[in-house]
């Protein structure tokens, strides 16, 4: 009971970091609309592409145009999450390392990893509640959108996917501590995630051998599993095992981040100032 209360008070402190980021994101109006338009345009382009490919009722690996209408919109919205996590975790950590803000955060009795995670979660909440919801509403009105097969399972799976990505983004952020400039690593991971997590095309459309390799990597656990759950492509048994694998990946990556952060901080060399 005592532990539970302690856990709750600590949790509430971290949620305040989320809140700060959330409010901060709200304060840039022009940026809000520009990014919204950009992402909406990408979804529209993708839609017309699929419309041409899947004309006359054709299907590719089980995907018909009506599936892809929903797929491109949901995957398009996921790109807000990619944006938020690569910027809000990996690039943020690199920036904090170079500006010295990292030092000030290390002087607080809070976990740096959780502080970074929760900040980003605040950003994601903003992205989903405002940008994501706007895009999906526009899409539903203009083109049409199938509602999720099981909303609750979808949200759980998406949350786990976000945790997995946060773990990866944190590890990418940590590379700055060792190689000073992690822009290359960040670019490479972001591109891999866009391609391999299913936000570009459904993963089944890759060649068979690629698909079997992807089964052993965390990427498809980030967005492809949630999309499959959304579209109702997985049976109950498959959903349960997918959620378990997602949870395992989320755990492994966060623990890796925790351990690597510890050793990285030991090696920290900040001269002058």
């Amino acid at each position, binding site marked *: 009971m005592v532990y539970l209360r302690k856990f709750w*008070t600590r949790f*509430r*402190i971290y949620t*305040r970091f989320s809140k*700060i980021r959330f*409010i*901060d994101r709200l304060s840039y109006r022009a940026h809000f609309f520009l990014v919204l338009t950009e992402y909406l345009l990408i979804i529209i382009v993708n839609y017309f592409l699929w419309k041409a490919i899947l004309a006359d009722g054709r299907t590719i690996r089980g995907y018909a145009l009506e599936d892809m209408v929903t797929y491109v919109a949901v995957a398009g919205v996921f790109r807000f999450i990619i944006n938020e996590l690569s910027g809000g975790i990996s690039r943020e950590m690199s920036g904090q390392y170079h500006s*010295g*803000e990292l*030092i*000030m955060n*290390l*002087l*607080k*009795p*809070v*976990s740096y990893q959780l502080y970074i995670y929760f900040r980003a979660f605040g950003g994601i909440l903003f992205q989903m509640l405002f940008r994501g919801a706007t895009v999906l509403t526009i899409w539903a009105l203009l083109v049409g959108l199938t509602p999720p097969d099981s909303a609750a399972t979808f949200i759980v799976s998406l949350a786990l996917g976000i945790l997995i990505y946060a773990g990866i983004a944190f590890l990418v952020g940590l590379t700055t501590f060792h190689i000073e400039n992690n822009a290359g690593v960040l670019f490479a991971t972001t591109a891999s995630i866009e391609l391999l997590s299913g936000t570009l095309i459904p993963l089944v459309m890759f060649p068979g051998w690629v698909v079997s390799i992807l089964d052993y990597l965390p990427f498809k656990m980030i967005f492809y599993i949630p999309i499959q759950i959304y579209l109702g492509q997985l049976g109950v048994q498959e959903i349960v095992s997918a959620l378990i694998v997602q949870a395992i990946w989320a755990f492994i990556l966060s623990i890796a981040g925790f351990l690597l952060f510890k050793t990285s*901080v*030991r*090696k*920290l*060399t*900040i*001269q*002058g*100032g």
Partner: protein
Amino acid sequence: MALIAVENLTKSYKTFKRKEGLKGAFINLFKREYEFVQAVDNISFHVESGEILGYIGPNGAGKSTTIKILTGILTPTAGEVAVNGLVPYKRRQQHVKNIGVVFGQRTQLWWDIAVIEAFTLLRDIYEVSKTDFQAQLKKFDEVLGIGPLLHIPVRKLSLGQRVRCDIAASLLHNPPVVFLDEPTIGLDVAVKSNIREFIKEMNASLGTTMILTTHDLSDIEYLCQRSLIIDQGKIIFDGDLQQAKDELARQRKIQVDLYERVDIDSIRDQLKVAELEFAGQNDYSLTISFNKDEISAIDIIQKILDLLHPRDIKIEEPTIETVVKEIYEKRSL
């Protein structure tokens, strides 16, 4: 037992030696040379509870590195450190609960939010009770005048305002140990003295132990009974600078302004003092340097009054700056 104990502390950095120019950049791509920099070189010192320790040294001497090790950010290469019985870098989160840190050049308040929001966040992080928090705010407002600043976003504060808020923020949880790294850098005289008063008050009323690094030696003169001077990673002085001022600065100067030109050679013969020279461009003023152990100022003045009719006489006391400069120079010999 001392509150802060540092034994044979060493920190060395491996830095990558960059070759210059286009050719050098190409070579760097394939072959890298590293060199080791000894930022802190086998230093030991203790700080007792309730002490304000001045920690000074030229730029790049190893001051900030020491502070960063003591605050748990950096891990030493060798040696032992204990603050409050804890090893800072091993138990970082626990350790930082018991300390307050002010870096004059950086802020610990989150940029995006108003000062009061940052304060309440810190209150929750450090688990300060609401009544204690209100009492602290009231006290900080009285001494540092932060009341009107509370609802301004941190990024809109001026430097002086920000530093005052930063100091308040670092002391919100009443830490027993406080590290002040150049807290008065870039501040105007009024704010400076304000902050000094506050530091002195904190130390007197709560017995807070403090380590103060600064380039402003008047801060040290006002606040610290004991100072460490570090240069090139080594401690070259440990003691009372006021005392050192008396011991080290034996060279004093007397400046004499005259009504008429004098023959300096004849005066030098009659005074029998090591050095006597005209100061400045005109012949109506002369400066006499002497070692105060060999001859007293009174004797010189008496002799001058016998020989000349001076318009004015000034005795120049050595300043703490000259003392520190002398300590630095001795070291480099």
